[in-house]
Each structure stands twice: as structure tokens, then as C-alpha cells.
């Protein structure tokens, strides 16, 4: 390329063109940014306002203060008979805890195993990752069949001669949420594996060589050196998992068959049913805002530190 456009041009034209040229990037970005301002931040504020009203089947702007949040707060402790919100909170804790712990341990385990100079890694890795391409509705449909006691796992075990085998969780309202957790772990553990594997591959070999020379066993090397060095990966994996767990919705419906009787209620399904089928839109909005705040509390510090690190 030759620098040829530096010949002087009449002054007024330059400034006009220049001004357009200067504004152009912002003009290009503006529509997207505006859409996000309105559809994300505007809508969240709108939902927040609705949560302070007495909206039922339709939205209204008759403000009643914090009543809906107080209602949810009382429901949080109403366990006999359990309120839907109580069930949602308890299930969220159970489901979230199991999901995060199992995904992290299976993901880390698989990553360490795959990192042992395995023949056929190229075949195995995609197998652990393919569930990520499936929609949760498909995943849920598959697991619902697989765990179905009449035609699925229990039946198959009986046919194989293990007649005392009993596994009816997927049709047992009290155990359904665990089946959702099983399907969810199956769906995301591969992703966590990929994160850890990338972390493992990024570790400096010199450090490990030093450990080897010092006579550390492979178990010790992993426990004392490798796993501590993966701490940032643990952090991102955990945040991603918590974020996914808080938003789980599709899987609950598909594994349980549209959540009969609210047995596998989570805040997400609570929000949906209170808003769109029970005509308590204001309560639904309040629960949506609580979800929002929970996720913000997890994500904002994380994103902030990520962005700051990168710009350094």
C-alpha cells in the first residue's frame, strides 16, 4: 500500500467528511446498544416496577410497596404444608449443590484421565461433549425414558436377573429433582472437562519436572501442584455452573413431564407458573427479580475482574 491520500483537500470538506467518519462507528454500534439498553435493562426495571404492584393476570401500575417480596419471604419458611416457593428454594439448594459438586468432580476426573497421553483421545473427547449440542428438551426426553421404571433401567435390570433392583425416582414426586440433577450433570460435565483439560494443557512443564526430580509421586504432584494451579479454572467453572443451575428450566419440564404438582419446582418454574398460569404476575415478577439479583451477585464481580485483568 502506498501513502498517497495525504494530498491536501479543501478544508470544509475535510471537516464534514471527518465528522461523519468520526460519528460512524458510534452510529453503527448505537442500534445494538440501544436494543440492549431497552430490552435488557429497561425490561428488568419494568419487571422490578411490576413486582411492586398488585398485578394479577394483567399488568397494572397500582403500587403496593414491598408486599410481594414479603410474601415470598414468608413463603420461604412455610414448610408444612410446603409453599411452592419453599419447595423451589429447597430444590434449588439440593439440585444446585449436587449439580455443581458432581460436574466439577466428574469434569476434573475426566480431564486428568484424558491428560495421561491417551490413545484415542480424539474419539473420547467428542463423546463427553456431544450432550452440549442437544437441547435440554431432547436430553430430558431421553433420560425420562432411560429412567422410566416400567420400560427403562429398572425393567432392564430385572430382565438381567437383578430382580430386587428398584429405581422409580423419575415418577416419584419426592425424588424427581434428583433425576433432573442426573440429566443436568450428564449434559454439562463434559464442558467442565473441556475447561479443566485446557487448564491442564496450559501448565508449565518445568514446574512438573522439578516436582518429579524432587521425588513427588504422581498423586502428590496432582494434589499439591497441579490442582492448586487450576484454581482460576475452578473459579470460572463454578461460576458457569452456578449460573446454569439458577437458570435451569427446560430440563425440569422435560425430565419430569411438565413438573406435575410442582414437585420439582425451581425458582424458574415458579416464576413461570405464577406469572402465566396462576395469574399472580406481581409475585412472579418479584421472584424473577430475586433470580436476577442472585445471578448478578455471582456474575458482576466475576465479569468485573475478568474485564479488568484483560485490559491490564
Amino acid at each position, binding site marked *: 500500500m502506498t501513502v*498517497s*491520500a495525504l494530498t491536501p483537500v479543501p478544508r470544509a470538506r475535510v471537516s464534514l467528511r471527518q465528522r461523519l*467518519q468520526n460519528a460512524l462507528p*458510534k452510529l*453503527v454500534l448505537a*442500534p*445494538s*446498544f440501544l*436494543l440492549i439498553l431497552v*430490552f*435488557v*435493562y429497561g*425490561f*428488568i426495571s*419494568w419487571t422490578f416496577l*411490576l413486582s411492586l404492584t398488585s398485578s394479577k393476570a394483567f*399488568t397494572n401500575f397500582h403500587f403496593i410497596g414491598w408486599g410481594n417480596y414479603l410474601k415470598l419471604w414468608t413463603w420461604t419458611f412455610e414448610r408444612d404444608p410446603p409453599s411452592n416457593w419453599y419447595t423451589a428454594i429447597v430444590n434449588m439448594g439440593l439440585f444446585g449443590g449436587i449439580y455443581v459438586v458432581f460436574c466439577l468432580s*466428574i469434569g476434573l476426573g475426566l480431564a486428568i484421565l484424558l*491428560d*495421561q497421553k491417551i490413545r484415542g483421545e480424539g474419539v473420547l473427547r467428542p463423546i463427553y461433549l*456431544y450432550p*452440549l*449440542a*442437544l*437441547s*435440554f*428438551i*431432547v436430553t430430558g*426426553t431421553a*433420560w425420562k*425414558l*432411560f429412567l422410566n421404571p416400567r420400560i427403562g433401567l429398572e425393567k432392564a435390570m430385572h430382565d438381567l436377573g437383578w430382580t430386587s433392583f428398584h429405581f422409580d425416582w423419575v415418577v416419584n414426586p419426592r425424588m424427581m429433582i434428583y433425576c433432573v440433577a442426573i440429566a443436568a450433570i*450428564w449434559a454439562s460435565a463434559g464442558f467442565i472437562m473441556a*475447561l479443566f483439560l485446557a487448564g491442564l494443557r496450559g501448565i508449565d*512443564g*518445568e514446574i512438573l*519436572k522439578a*516436582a*518429579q526430580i524432587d521425588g513427588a509421586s504422581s498423586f502428590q504432584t496432582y494434589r499439591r501442584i497441579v490442582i492448586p494451579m487450576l484454581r482460576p479454572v475452578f473459579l*470460572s467453572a463454578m461460576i458457569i455452573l452456578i449460573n446454569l443451575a*439458577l*437458570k435451569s*428450566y*427446560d430440563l425440569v419440564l*422435560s425430565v419430569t*413431564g411438565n413438573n406435575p404438582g410442582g414437585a420439582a419446582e425451581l*425458582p424458574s418454574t415458579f*416464576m*413461570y407458573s405464577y*406469572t402465566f398460569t396462576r395469574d399472580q404476575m406481581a409475585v*412472579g*415478577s418479584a421472584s*424473577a427479580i430475586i*433470580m436476577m439479583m442472585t445471578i*448478578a451477585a455471582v*456474575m*458482576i464481580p466475576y*465479569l*468485573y475482574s475478568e*474485564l479488568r485483568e484483560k485490559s491490564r
Partner: protein
Amino acid sequence: MSAVTPAAIMRAHPTRRSAWRSRIVIYGLLIFFAVLYLMPLVVMVMTSLKPMSEITGGNMFELPHHLTFAPWIKAWGTTCVGLTCAGIKGYFWNSIKMVVPAVFISTMLGSLNGYVLTKWRFAGHRLVFGLMLFACFIPYQSVLIPMAVILGKLGSIGMNMQDLTGYSLGFGNPTVNLVLVHVVYGLGFTTLFFRNYYEAFPTELIKAAQIDGAGFFQIFRRIMLPSSAPIFIVTVIYQFTNIWNDFLFGSTFAAGDNAPMTVALNNVVNTSTGVIEYNVNMAAAIIAAAPTLIVYVVAGRYFVRGLMAGAVKG
């Protein structure tokens, strides 16, 4: 990598025999998990190829004795979704009609945004990006009600226009609505992907082109686009998978015959009337999974890159 990895240490250690034993354990565990991962899909495929008698009478791990494609034909053409019994084919096309424009628009906007946010920085660019980034992570429940209200408004505008002019111009059309929704809530991701990709692109080239008199769009078209193929593939795959697999927006904003594939599948599987036809259900599920699964098989590398990028690890 030529450096010493944890693996090498594991191997270099003690005696031959114990090394052998640990190899067997490692491969055993990996294969066990691989089987565990493949099982649901295999069972699904086998179930979809069996007549009902074999499903209720037999074992789900057995291969079909009488191979039948009837469940597939029924799922595609005649099974009941809600009250209409015309199979899932219409919903499959609904999804295609929604996915193609939504992916195209959100990806194009994302690439322009990424270009501006890295090469045409302005005061406050970081705040703008931060706000767009956080939009990726909101729970969609928190925007569902206002969205429903706005789409309802658009619907009545469309009706009025229909009455006045004979054309609704897309106002109130469920597919258009879903495209809008997916573009808006996909923008954060596409912008993030392109921003992180263009960040590493040498700014000197842009400066040089500017000196040569190239304008904003010229630089984008001549310099950025030709080297953006990988990130376009990653973004398109990511958006395609996400939008195809969406259920929440589809079930909220497109009811009945206008529903996308995932919503129709849930209706097929979870209808409470009549005998449950597991084979038809499974065939429908595989059809719903096929497009994203094929993309995964064909372009798995890009798929995984998209996932990692979506995890905010630049």
C-alpha cells in the same frame, strides 16, 4: 507439547507392572464414562426403531428384533402435537424459518459491534461493552413479562395494519417476534465473540489503511472480514445451537401451530392423553436433535471453541 506434562510423570514413575495396572484403570474409567455418555442416545435410537410391543415387552438395551421405520414416519408426518395431528414437520420448518434470519442478523451486528469496540474505541467503550456483556447472563425470566406485553402491542399494531392496508408487514408474526427476541438476547454473545477475536487483530493495519484513505466500512470489508472466517463459523454455530435449542422464549411467545421444534417436541412427549408411543416420541426427539448434532459432528472443533468463548475466557 514437548514439555513434561503430568502424564509423563505418571508414566515415568515406579515399576513396569504398576504402570500397566494404572493404564488399565485409566482406560477402563474413560471407556466406562464413554459408555455412560452414549447410552441415552443409543437407547433413544433403538427405541425409535422398535414396534411398541417390543418396547413394553422387551428390554431397552436389546437390539430391535423387527426393525421398523414407522415411528419415524409417524413422528414426522402424522403424530399429534396438541390438537393437530400433522406430525412435527411444520414445527421443524418453523424453527428453520426462525433460526436462519436470527443467526444471520445477530452475527452481522455482532461483528460490526466487535469491530467498533476494538478498532474505533471511544470514551466509555468499556462501560458499553460491560453492559452488553452482562446482558448475556441475565435470567430471561426477568424480561419475560415486558417482552410479552411489547409483543402483544406489536400484534395489535399488525392487526390494525392488516385492516387498513391488507398487510401486517410482519407485525405480530410469531416467527418475526422470535427472530427479534433471539437477535436482541444473542447480541451480547456475538459482540463478545467478535470483540475478543478482533482484540488480537493488529491495529497498525487499520491505521495504515486509514492513512491510505480507507473509510470505516471499507476497512471492515477489505481488511477485517477476509480474516474473520474462523470467528464467523464459531459464532454462527454457537448462535444456531442456542436458538435452535431454546425452549423458554419459544414456549412463551409462539403457541400452537407457530411453535418451534423444541416446544412441539415437549408437547408430543408430555401429552397426557392416550397410550404413550415411546418409539414415536424418541423418533421426534432425534429429529429435533439432528440439526445441532450434525453441526457438532461436522464442526466439533468450532463448536467447542464457541463454548469456551461463551464462558468468558478470552
